[in-house]
């Protein structure tokens, strides 16, 4: 079942997890073939691939995340599925010092403005919350 947002249960499980160490958010992404901006968006009617709109979101999200110590570990476009039969276009991994920093990024004053780019460009995604299990080098 393609998903776009956390369910209420998924969001609560994330928010209420007592682990307070660093996390990496692994985004597995599928883009729209063409962007779907809404009437009223400045970009409404633009003829471009969904990945362009998502990149605008990723740029803005990365800036907001940096204010609370977040950083991008990987933004990669899929060359192929080498094992398995998934169908995803890109993988973006964002590192945060703790889960509060991630939630702060979602609540950043610029988030309301940036998320139209996510809506316009993203078809569906999975988001895997991970705890680093090897010593961090950066």
């Amino acid at each position: 079942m393609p998903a776009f947002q956390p369910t209420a249960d998924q969001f609560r499980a994330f928010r209420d997890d007592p682990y307070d160490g660093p996390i990496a958010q692994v985004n597995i992404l599928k883009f729209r073939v063409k962007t779907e901006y809404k009437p009223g968006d400045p970009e409404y009617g633009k003829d471009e691939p969904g990945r362009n709109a998502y990149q605008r979101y990723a740029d803005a999200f990365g800036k907001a995340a940096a204010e609370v110590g977040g950083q991008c570990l990987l933004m990669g476009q899929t060359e192929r599925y080498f094992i398995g039969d998934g169908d995803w276009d890109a993988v973006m991994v964002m590192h945060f010092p703790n889960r509060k920093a991630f939630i702060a990024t979602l609540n950043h004053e610029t988030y309301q403005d940036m998320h139209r780019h996510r809506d316009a460009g993203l078809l569906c995604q999975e988001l895997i919350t991970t705890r680093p299990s090897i010593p961090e080098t950066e």
Partner: protein
Amino acid sequence: MAIEPTTEQTAAFLNRDQDETIVMVNLLKFKDKATYAEGTAEHGEDVSGAAAYMRYGVEVNKILAKIGATPLFAGAAPNMMIGEGDWDMVALVRYPSRAAMIGMTQSAEYQAIHHHREAGLDHQDLVEVTELQAPA
């Protein structure tokens, strides 16, 4: 669900620029209990699949260092925040080239540790990506 590439997947990989830098995104699901094949030294050991895979991980990291590959990140995956996937771990490795990755998997050194991977891994997805500019 797979633990190895199909013949077609391998052929497609080999048909691309062998000098290009790539990152391999491993989405891993472990067996509850390791299943070492008969004939391996560990056959019959009562350890978790995760523990068997970690033996592979420790050894493969040594090989990665020799071929100039960089483990970017490995993390246990306690939560799916969006979607219905079911993974135990995510590991990212940057290879200096496609040739380096294939060369590694064909080396005797790698073949000698691969039984730990087979014993511990239930299935995985392996996504080959090329890096775009980082968002920030």
